[in-house]
């Protein structure tokens, strides 16, 4: 029974990684850049929920909505101010280094406003959860909600990309920006939209992450951001189902290795798996084969 509990917890943590990884992978797919500040969008989202909830004496729903809106604005603004001017720069490293700069900027702004001490985050999920088998198998409410939310997000994203004109434009621009522009697609606006979606997802992930692990500091987003990046690469960067699978694998491995092997070694095991997968299949689990064009 306890194994099942750990597995479900792993699934839940994996779902959070997956939601973050979706933002990473979608932005990479279209802008061909790694937004290393993505993890810090999570932290910003958490602080917004924290502050709004405190101001409204514990109303976290409004906090989540405000966080989603402000993170979306933050993502689009960051893209416009910091990344867009560097698109087409001589070296792709320019935008990568800028992203790291944005990451430090956000962390230090948070440090300035909230200080370095860890804030205790009140879970946005008030539901206690359910227990089975006479209390032997207990699943927390936040665990169930996290898994459900990630499933809903995945389905919604797939529908958006395959069924809407904007989603199709996103796919087209991911493949070939020039050809997309010839179709009449405003590529800049499409990239901005991708940042908006990714950042909104980061806010959602933040709410779930801090509800499950309720300690908030300016560096809260850093490690989950890196783990989600690993998840995206593991699943095949640029692939939406890949990000989902990569996230779930990562979460489950992390929780199980923490439980059964060693909590100190769990991160090493997680990154070790990345190394092995990339050695065997460099494009990741669902990575796209580069097509030979004749």
């Amino acid at each position, binding site marked *: 029974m306890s194994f099942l509990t750990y597995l479900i917890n792993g699934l839940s943590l994996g779902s959070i990684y997956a939601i973050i990884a979706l933002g990473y992978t979608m932005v990479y797919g279209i802008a061909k850049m790694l937004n290393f500040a993505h993890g810090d969008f999570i932290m910003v989202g958490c602080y917004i929920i924290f502050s709004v909830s405190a101001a409204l004496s514990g109303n976290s729903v409004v906090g989540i909505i405000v966080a989603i809106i402000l993170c979306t604005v933050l993502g689009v603004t960051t893209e416009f101010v910091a990344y867009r001017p560097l698109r087409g720069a001589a070296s792709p490293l320019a935008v990568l280094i800028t992203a790291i700069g944005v990451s430090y900027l956000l962390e230090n702004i948070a440090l300035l406003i909230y200080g370095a001490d860890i804030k205790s985050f009140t879970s946005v999920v008030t539901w206690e959860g359910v227990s089975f088998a006479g209390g032997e198998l207990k699943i927390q409410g936040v665990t169930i909600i996290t898994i459900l939310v990630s499933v809903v997000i995945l389905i919604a994203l797939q529908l958006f990309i395959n069924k809407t004109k904007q989603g199709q434009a996103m796919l087209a621009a991911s*493949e070939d920006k020039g050809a997309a522009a*010839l179709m009449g697609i405003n590529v800049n606006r499409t990239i901005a939209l991708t940042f908006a979606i990714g950042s909104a997802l980061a806010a959602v992930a933040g709410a779930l992450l801090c509800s499950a692990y309720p300690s908030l500091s300016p560096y809260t987003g850093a490690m989950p951001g890196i783990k989600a990046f690993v998840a995206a690469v593991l699943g095949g960067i640029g692939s939406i189902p890949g990000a989902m699978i990569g996230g779930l694998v990562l979460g489950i491995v992390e929780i199980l290795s923490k439980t059964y092997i060693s909590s100190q070694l769990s991160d090493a095991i997680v990154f070790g798996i990345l190394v092995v997968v990339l050695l065997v299949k460099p494009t990741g689990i669902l990575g796209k084969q580069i097509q030979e064009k004749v």
Partner: protein
Amino acid sequence: MSSILEVKDLSVYYGVIQALKGISFHVDKGEIVALIGANGAGKTTTLHTLSGLINADGGSINYKGHELTKIPSHQIVTFGMAQVPEGRRVFAEMTVLQNLKMGAYTRNDKAEMEATLATIYKRFPRLEERKNQLAGTLSGGEQQMLAMGRALMSHPDLILMDEPSMGLSPIFVNEIFSIIEDVNKDGVTVLLVEQNAKKALSIANRAYVLETGSIAKEGDAKELLNDEAIRKAYLGE
């Protein structure tokens, strides 16, 4: 006949290198105009500048009364100018039908779009047979047809074709050229860039010869086909 496209003194620089040295040409409504020349003469640069993928550094592009040099590429298609790019550049990860729908991205008239799709399927039956197949799995000739169908989905008045015969087997080359003639007969003006000068001149009304960024010669396509210097330089005779 009236000009649909009037290009004047168009110049483009890549860094310090001048790729187009102030070229002027025009395309009249209903014509097929060929732009021929060797590799690196500036043919693709010309088409990319017309479509706004490259910014002009000087000169003007007048299309149906609109000055195009200041208009972003994604708006140009709404004026009725479409391009079939070099190397086809179909969206390999999307299906044939999704590719065709992308061609009609700027159109909102669903019923008319369906009608256009039907005419394209009629012209390219193979595309209808493979409409749910990923474009990346098509053969080169089929991808060329898809790229043409995709451009036609925007219902253009002028279609720019960049090397439509490149890398195709001789049978497909003949098929593609006869389709270009058919499209033209249906009222679409064509600006055709080709290295296969012989084929291009045989279906064109007029032609321009581009040499290292300048127009070296222009005239009636049939006359150029019989021009001694052209035959030597471009037709391999």
